[in-house]
């Protein structure tokens, strides 16, 4: 039988050794992991403008198609000193609305059309959901949408990350004919085909669908001045 003193010393040494070792591993691998996250972000942004990419070619395609990126605030004033790609949309949610940094990516497609890509971030049922909305040059009609989630229920809320769900957003509109801000809602029971501001919600994924509607409404609202401006 080992003495109490032995047990305490044994466990202390073990814990310190293990902690040191894990720290070294974590620090050593961090640059590689951060790079993977950046590539994933590029792939997500490209997905919103229907450009398929792999982890290998994402960086190249991103440089090729994303011709400009800038940061604005809620009054559509450019914040020149900051790089849009480095803005952490999740962290920005905690800052006051007036001070919030709003990134915009500008994409030029193969047919030389300009698309504006806006990141959105919100809450689903179990955790965060996020995405990118690509708008046509009129800053009103949706060209494409991409959504992802941390841990929504597979088969229910998690369906927001499927192509079928995301394709519904094409040609929907942010503003109505009078120019009032409407955003796009996921409608339970299905949206009418003539509805410019609604898509079919996910059966069994009501809270995720509602979270998605709220995310779009809140986050696109921040860009209202930018979207209404002509340049």
């Amino acid at each position: 039988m080992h003495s109490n003193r032995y047990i305490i010393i044994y466990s202390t040494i073990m814990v310190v050794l293990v902690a040191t070792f894990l720290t070294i591993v974590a620090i050593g691998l961090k640059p590689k992991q951060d790079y993977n996250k950046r590539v994933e972000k590029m792939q997500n942004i490209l997905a919103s403008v229907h450009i398929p990419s792999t982890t290998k070619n994402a960086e190249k395609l991103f440089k090729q198609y994303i011709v400009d990126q800038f940061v604005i605030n809620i009054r559509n004033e450019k914040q020149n000193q900051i790089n849009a790609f480095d803005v952490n949309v999740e962290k920005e949610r905690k800052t006051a609305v007036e001070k919030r940094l709003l990134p915009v990516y500008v994409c030029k497609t193969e047919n030389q059309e300009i698309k504006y890509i806006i990141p959105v971030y919100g809450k689903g049922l179990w955790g965060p959901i996020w995405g990118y909305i690509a708008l046509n040059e009129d800053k009103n009609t949706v060209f494409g949408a991409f959504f992802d989630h941390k841990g929504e229920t597979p088969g229910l809320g998690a369906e927001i990350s499927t192509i079928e769900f995301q394709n519904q957003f094409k040609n929907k509109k942010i503003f109505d004919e009078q120019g009032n801000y409407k955003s796009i809602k996921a409608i339970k029971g299905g949206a009418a085909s003539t509805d410019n501001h609604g898509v079919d919600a996910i059966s069994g994924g009501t809270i995720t669908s509602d979270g998605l509607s709220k995310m779009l409404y809140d986050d696109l609202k921040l860009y209202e001045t930018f979207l209404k401006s002509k340049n």
Partner: protein
Amino acid sequence: MENKESIFSPKIIKTFLGPLNQNNPISVQVLGICSALAVTVQLKPALVMALSVTIVTGFSSLIISLLRNTIPSRIRIIVQLVVIATLVIIVDQLLKAYVYDVSKKLSVFVGLIITNCIIMGRLEAYALGNKPWPSFVDGIANGMGYGIILIMVGFIRELFGSGKILGMSVIPDSLYQIGYENNGLMILPPMALILIGVIIWIHRSWNKTLIEK
């Protein structure tokens, strides 16, 4: 002087083959089922999971066996957990750094290797009382026994569920044109359970000694 055993003595080979057949962790001991259901929709995550578990079982058995004479028996479970958790975190970090897409698919299941009963079971039952080399072989073999079943299930589910193997289409278009369809049930978790049941059935009808009286 203790007698030096050769590294491939018959006893070692028996230790190695046991978990692959007679004493398979999934089909005989029915351990580690939850991850077997969750990560076998496609072959690639199943392969990565099998490899991760094999590495963790192998090295945790080796480390625990090396330490076995120093571990105070009153805290041995805690020591085992620390060793397993450390290895799992390292594997998780490596996956995030080198196979990010697969690590996203495996998500929580890599972390849950810590609670995989196969690993602690082997440490308690074997590594604490045996020398490092046999313990290492026992750990690796149990990880592989688990992995083989995972890969079989992953192979069948991906082939019939999405018509692909490792993400590449293998079912010719002509077959789809004459009316063949992918089986959607294969993608859902219950099918993994049914497949494991079928594997257990085949295993037992082939190895009669496994059938309980």
